[in-house]
């Protein structure tokens, strides 16, 4: 773990930004997360150490976008490459955050960070150089869909950061694609700030290649009357963690989350979500699906926190899991922490395999077992995939999942 040694001895980079310095300082005393803590207990230690084995890469090689742009109107950005953007149209504007705005916001966020809970973000911000931080301010409506790419480079660790401000009454569709390369580690941190009455359909699609690793963290702050819809998909990573933290800062906001993670071979993919309601009338509908095959391990931990102030919160969380092999493992822990009394909160969790009766029915109709299983899986995936913006019509994720896996 070369990087950890460098963090300890403060030998990372000569030209550190102020943010890097603050984060490094927070990490120096204990540069690794506590393996006994609830958030890291199930995390595979050797896989995490493999993540940290690569040296930091700050200059990207030429990146080939995996699929062509279908519509001219889509705005496509690659973190680390074309960080210059300024679009001022009649209905909308998209422009980069000034350095001051960016630093002020990130610094404010860091002040709430705890070493263990926000370890992934602290590591990201310690390693992410100026080039690899993209800050955007989006305003207006009828905005063309936005695609943002973040990619790893082989044999190195890449850290990329994205900060997005959605101004008041803004409405946007945004797809974030995280791509792993062979033998690579990618650390991606995203900060979203939704101002009043804004709404976003946010898609996060992360897929890797042989032995690629990912630490993906997403921090969302929702102001009053905002709506945040997230559709996420993680697959083909040797080791991946998706950490979601959503705070409804004054309640009266809506959050919808639909996530899917697929593990094969000896992969480990985990999703940790923490949803805090800091005001009344909050709404949450969350579903997280996992599929574990071969010798893989899928983990979901979700917590919903409803303090006294969050009266009339309506939150539901569902964890649905398919376990397809004798050697695979699934851990799930949906949890509720509630103090407000006038709330409706529920959660559910199931772990099972493909429905045998349905398989039997299809086979009696002449469908082969493989086809029948594919059909069942496709309906299992479809609910999540249809929730991911942009991708649904032109980039057939479902086919990719069913045929490549």
């Amino acid at each position, binding site marked *: 773990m070369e990087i950890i040694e460098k963090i300890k001895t403060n030998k990372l980079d000569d030209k550190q930004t102020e943010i890097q310095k603050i984060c490094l300082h927070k990490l120096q005393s204990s540069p690794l997360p506590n393996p006994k803590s609830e958030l890291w207990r199930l995390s595979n230690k050797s896989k995490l150490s493999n993540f940290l084995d690569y040296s930091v890469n700050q200059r990207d090689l030429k990146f080939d976008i995996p699929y062509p742009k279908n519509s001219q109107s889509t705005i496509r950005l690659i973190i680390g490459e074309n960080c210059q953007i300024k679009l001022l149209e009649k209905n909308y504007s998209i422009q980069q955050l000034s350095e001051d705005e960016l630093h002020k916001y990130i610094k404010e966020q860091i002040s709430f960070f705890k070493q263990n809970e926000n370890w992934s973000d602290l590591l990201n911000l310690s390693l992410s150089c100026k080039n690899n931080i993209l800050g955007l301010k989006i305003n207006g409506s009828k905005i063309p869909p936005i695609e943002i790419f973040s990619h790893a480079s082989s044999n190195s660790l890449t850290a990329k950061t994205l900060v997005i401000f959605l101004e008041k009454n803004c409405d946007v569709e945004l797809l974030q694609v995280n791509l792993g390369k062979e033998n690579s580690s990618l650390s991606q941190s995203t900060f979203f700030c939704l101002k009043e009455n804004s709404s976003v359909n946010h898609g996060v699609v992360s897929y890797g290649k042989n032995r690629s690793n990912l630490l993906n963290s997403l921090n969302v702050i929702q102001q009053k009357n905002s709506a945040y819809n997230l559709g996420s998909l993680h697959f083909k990573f040797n080791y991946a963690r998706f950490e979601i933290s959503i705070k409804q800062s004054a309640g009266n906001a809506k959050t919808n989350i639909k996530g899917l993670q697929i593990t094969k071979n000896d992969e480990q993919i985990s999703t940790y979500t923490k949803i805090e309601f800091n005001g009344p009338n909050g709404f949450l509908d969350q579903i997280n699906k996992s599929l574990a095959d071969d010798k893989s391990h899928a983990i979901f931990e979700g917590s919903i926190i409803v303090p006294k102030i969050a009266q009339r919160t309506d939150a539901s969380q569902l964890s649905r*899991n398919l*376990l397809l092999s004798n050697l*695979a493992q699934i851990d799930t822990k949906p949890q509720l*922490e*509630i103090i407000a009394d*006038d709330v409706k909160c529920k959660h559910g969790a*199931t772990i099972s395999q493909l429905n045998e009766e349905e398989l039997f029915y299809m086979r009696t109709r002449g469908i082969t077992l493989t086809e029948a299983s594919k059909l069942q899986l496709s309906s299992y995936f479809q609910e999540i995939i249809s929730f991911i913006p942009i991708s649904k019509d032109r980039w057939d994720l479902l086919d990719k999942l069913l045929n490549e896996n």
Partner: protein
Amino acid sequence: MVNENLVKDVVKEPYKYGFVTDIETEKIEKGLNEDIIKLISQKKEEPKFLLDFRLKAFKKWQKMKEPDWAELGYKKIDYQDIIYYSAPKQKEKISSLDEVDPKLLETFDKLGIPLTEQKKLTNVAVDAVFDSVSIATTFREELAEHGVIFCSISEAVKNHADLIEKYLGTVVPASDNYFAALNSAVFSDGSFVYIPKGVSCPMDLSSYFRINSGDSGQFERTLIIAEESSSVSYLEGCTAPMFDTNTLHAAVVELIALDDASIKYSTVQNWYAGDEEGIGGIFNFVTKRGKCLGKRSKISWSQVETGSAITWKYPSCLLLGEESVGEFYSVALTNNLQQADTGTKMIHIGPKTKSTIVSKGISAGNSKNSYRGLVKMGTKATGSRNYSQCDSMLIGDQASANTFPYIKSQQPNSEIEHEASTCRISEDQLFYLQSRGIEFEEAVSMMVSGFCRDVFNQLPMEFAAEADKLLALKLEGSVG
């Protein structure tokens, strides 16, 4: 309309078990070290294997750290400030109940557990434990006719040493956790039950635990063995006087069910919970575990937890035998400043095992009530099933309800279902009841009782009525 009358009876009642029995007791000095353990063992005239068991556990305990993962906040326990053995002074050997100190009999009478020949409860055999020792066990002869052994664990050590040596510590090993290790080192008394092959126990067995002394802890140990094709229903009740200090209660319960055997273990826990400011009350750290060793064996836990300042309790089932069944039905009520972190563990090891979890938590006042559970499907648990349901009800905006279910599966041919909900008392239903002339507080009690119905239905008759009463009593003044 049972509830209505019951609620009326008790609404204005304070903690009625809070009295202290003024009786001469024999106490050893405060503190915990090897000499104290040797002294306890010597007082109980124990065989060497048991003293070795205690000393080994003590060594392990010294190396362990008090667990801090539970959602509980309490002041640090000074383990050297506790008296580990306290017993009422009485004649050396008691041949009949007539020789028991009348004050003790009176105490249990007041608690609603009459032990004397004329008054004793029909069809329930009782083992009454007062501080560190067992006072009396009723119906022993009748039970002996069926080959059932029901006595205090100290007697069992003397008379059935082979069984104790074979089974003690096999379900909850001394090194299991901090409090189990402490109990293994210093346990003073408790109950022992042995149901021989093919016997269905003719009556319910019951233990009643009473803490009387304010500065001594209670560390009882219960061991129940159900041989092939046998069955037993066991009830446990607990109370303590009101002291403004905290008393430690760290018990261990071990159940073993062999082929086709079934054990039903019911608890109504009503230790003193402390006053409204949270002063005093029992710290209840209990390890309860059952092992379904045999094929088609069944262990069922039902509990009503209403007392204690702190409750840390996870009755569990290890489902080893093929087609064995584990059940857990629980109502946990917290009020004022009480804190409860309770739940269960269902570990499916054998094939075709089944488990059901129904947990109802009610938090009122400034209390904290957490459900913490684990359901685990091992690699060999093919065709196994689990169903869990945990519901929480919040009364007042200062109480908190948490749910932490851990679910782990390594077996694709198994099914796990878990659901949980949190709600408050429905205003529509309250309004309906009030419009029918039912007082507000009564209506709340009825609704709470309805909320807990699934669990109460699993309790033996005597307990179900008591549990209903208890809930109403505990909720007094917490609504509105």
